């Protein structure tokens, strides 16, 4: 069980001597840890710590263990943690297909790579969009492509930073089901930062409430 999970072992982050957050949690593959709390409670600090973008001004104690490996001080590009933000952030100078190709790890001929990408697109019924400019897609389509992009990079865990809050209510449910479904299918531990209780409920998540420390 612990084999593929994401473990935050006595993770304590502080800034200039003040402890911002103190977490001990384990997220099993396919499970969701929902981190909730008001703004300023350190949600994004926690995300930065896990993904490796914590500014050196912060100090971080404890361990982050993913798939049995201590990644606390690993370079962010080697952590294999997929990121999704509130906006899909598809690279605007690339086509949809180029975005996906960019995410695919090295190896294989050009044709093989394109085929892999197309297969992924077909699986989510977006095969017609490959050549499109990402900015011409609807919000829901962009979110789905962004998730495909993350999955193509073969991550071992997913970090979602309020990924649904930019979508309107109707769309939100569908994208939510889509994302959590795929995470489960791929057996990925998920950390979800949100302030929408419905997100956490839909994911049947274990919930951590960060309190405003100020």
């Amino acid at each position, binding site marked *: 069980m612990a084999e593929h999970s994401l473990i935050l072992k006595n993770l304590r982050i502080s800034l200039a001597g003040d402890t911002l957050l103190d977490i001990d949690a384990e997220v099993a593959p396919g499970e969701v840890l929902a981190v909730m709390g008001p703004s300023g409670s350190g949600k994004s600090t926690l995300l930065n710590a896990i993904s*490796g973008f914590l500014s050196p001004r912060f100090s971080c104690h404890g361990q982050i263990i993913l798939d049995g490996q201590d990644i606390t001080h690993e370079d962010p*590009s080697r952590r294999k943690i997929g*990121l999704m933000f509130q906006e899909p952030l598809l*690279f*605007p*100078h690339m086509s949809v297909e180029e975005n996906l190709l*960019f995410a695919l790890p090295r190896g294989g001929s050009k044709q093989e790579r394109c085929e892999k990408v197309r297969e992924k697109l077909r699986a989510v019924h977006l095969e017609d969009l490959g050549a499109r*400019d990402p*900015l011409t897609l609807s919000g829901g389509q962009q979110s789905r492509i962004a998730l495909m992009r993350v999955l193509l990079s073969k*991550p071992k865990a997913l970090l979602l930073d309020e990924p649904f809050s930019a979508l309107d209510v109707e769309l939100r449910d569908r994208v939510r089901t889509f994302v959590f479904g795929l995470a489960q299918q791929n057996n990925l531990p998920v950390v979800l930062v949100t302030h929408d209780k419905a997100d956490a409920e839909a994911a049947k998540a274990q919930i951590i409430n960060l309190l405003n420390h100020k």
Partner: protein
Amino acid sequence: MVQTLYARYVMTMTNRALNAIFWVAPALVILLLTGPLLAGLIGVAAPAFGYFPTLGGVELTWDHLHKAMHVPGFWHSVHLSIWIGLVTTIISFVIVIGFFAAFWDAPFFARISRFVSPLMSVPHAAAAFGFAFLFAPSGWLIRLLSPWATGFDRPPDWLIINDPLGYALLAGLVLKEVPFLFLMCLSAASQINVDKRLKLARSMGYGRVWAWLTVVMPALYRQIRLPIFAVIAFSSSVVDVALILGPNLPPSLPVQILRWMNDPDIEMRFVAAAGAVFQLGATLVALMAWWLLEMLCSYLMRQMQSKGARHQNDQIVRQIFNIAMLAMVTISAASIVILGIWSVAGYWRFPEALPRAMNLMRWLDNASNLWGPSFNAIKIGVAAALISVVQTLLCLENEKRHDIRLTQSALRLIYLPLIVPQIAFISGISILLVRYGLDGSFWPVTIMHVVFVFPYTYLALEASFHDLDPRYMQTATALGKSQNRIFFQIKLPMLLKPILTALALGFAISVAQYLPTLMIGAGRVPTITTEAVALASGGDRRLIGIYALVQTLLPAVGFALALVLPKLLYPNKIYFSKQREA
């Protein structure tokens, strides 16, 4: 298997090499900005105090400084430089700030802004020629007014251009410094929350202009202080515009120094160096005078502010700045037009408003003469702009990687080559280059241009680079990409527009350089700018019109390319068509 191992090895080595380049870039820039400056100042100071063994100067002496001081009209030249530096800056500053205060949120502001950026790219020399063609006694303005309004059927005997007190020089400089300060204020304004500040003050009942002056200007001024110093230094030491519009007997100090440098009597080099030392002093005096004015104004502002007057009736003030700015834009546009008219003018008798015939004869006659200097300008401009932009990007990326943003003092370093008068240290460098036989070739001229281009490309790119949403880079990193790959595949393409604009700006700055090209090139690297300024004394208006117009067109082509290229390179990408101009 061996192949993949080898490929991987090459990749790691390339990555390491790139990392090293990023790491070294800032040190290189510091060397580039301060090296020539220090060398130049030493190269000026040594001969000024008599030490220059090549010319037989081995003793330290005050003689050369004395000699310079006793040249007839010397102190007048010094006064001219200080006065022109100071007054040009005051007038330009007042026009720009007044216009911003009066029209910040009016539609008129946006309309004027659109005219101002292209004006900034017009080389100083071309603008000066256009100004002369407009306002000379036989210029377009008097032609348009004669004889019906003035009664003149021959040009009046007035000394308007090259007047002894330098009013024409002053006006010509204001015409160029207003667009510069305008753009500087615009970019500074985007970094402070102008609208919120204004709303707050306006809701307390303050009039538009006064609200702007009291709550926006203090914050804005801090950001444009260095550009203002650059304007003071530039106008107090300008050579090309002074050769075209400035007084002759005596000329302003920098022109005098240039004459001494070119004097056949080689001994005069010592006097020229001494003059350059005085130039440093003159610019310093102008800067200090500005500093005193700063203190006085901020004291007065504070006094007035605390009285709480609302100054709601500012219609007249607004009208004044409306007229001032409109006049500026009109004169600038008209001076380009008149350059164009003269370049194709056939026979043109005095009071007639337009030439009787227009043809391309002179253009065709001079096509072959134009090509060499234009090509030199393009070569140097492209090389200098590329070097500067690459250096800028390396430095900015390095800052990002180490999570630093330049402090105010580091910024001062970048402005340094713009604040020390060109004539003072370039003459020193040229003396050194002659000593080692390195003058008069492409690379020294290009490197010298980089010193003046880099500050602009850096300032132009800095904001866009830092404003790029960091989450794009985080996304790419999380996808497993190295920093170097992200730099080339995400940052550079996403910043394509500002990068091209910075290249065009760098090219424009380089094309307009007169003194560095002339002195470092030792006259053997003629560019369109050095050739155009050389025509000033000749008075062949058709020829001047042609050269000045080509000089204006080169940067314009650069900016046009910067606008068009992203759309050609990335057709059908909304990101590149809707993105705001940098």
